[in-house]
């Protein structure tokens, strides 16, 4: 039994580049990675939003209506739905004046998980306890 932790750190706003979205889809793939690993081997992702990256977490993104593509919001909801740990930096929400009412949840999809709003120190700790970090 051996687990490898990976921190996916999103530092940039959505849509300007594909990378913030790819952070969600890459992290999500931990769900199926076992088919390429040995028994008992697992990967645990932590998906973290810091800096302008927290702008990914605004709800009511209408990318499907406006441009016909899946919104970053929908990707994030899917992450919560499969019980992934998703963290966003409290200091940055405060800096941008983003209240909890504007932050994505997946309640309507029946998810138990919520986005975890944490101080940057917690994200630092996640990086320290991870085997690998990936900055998006």
């Amino acid at each position, binding site marked *: 039994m051996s687990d490898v932790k990976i921190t996916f750190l999103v530092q940039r*706003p*959505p*849509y*300007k580049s594909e990378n913030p979205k790819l952070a969600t889809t890459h992290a999500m793939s931990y769900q199926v990675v076992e088919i390429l690993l040995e028994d008992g081997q697992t990967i645990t992702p932590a998906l973290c939003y810091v800096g*302008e990256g927290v*702008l990914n977490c*605004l*709800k*009511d*993104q*209408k*990318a499907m*209506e*406006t*441009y016909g593509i899946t*919104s970053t*919001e929908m990707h994030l909801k899917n992450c919560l739905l499969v019980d992934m740990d998703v963290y966003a930096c409290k200091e940055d929400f405060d*800096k*941008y*004046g983003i209240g909890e009412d*504007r932050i994505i949840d997946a309640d309507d999809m029946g998810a138990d998980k919520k986005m975890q709003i944490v101080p940057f120190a917690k994200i630092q700790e996640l990086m320290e306890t991870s085997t690998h970090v990936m900055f998006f």
Partner: protein
Amino acid sequence: MKLGVFVSDYKLTVDTLDRLTAEKLGIILVSNGVYHASIKENGKTSSLLDKSANFYALKEDLETRGIDPSGIDSRVKAVNYGDVVDLIMNDYEKLAWL
């Protein structure tokens, strides 16, 4: 000159807009540029909006990012693609993209 500048980013790495002058300046916020119309940092609106210019923000790009066009800064007018075409053709002679 009558210059229409498309601002497509939030954190700009170029300072050209701060340096140039135009008798008539239009700033059209598109893509992540629309955050200038909505996001306050530490309670302050974007300094871009302090410029002497007419400001527009693309509705579709606001909505894509979860921003309600009715709630943006009062100095900025929400416009759609058709409006942008009219701005280009009727109001500004030269166009720049940042």
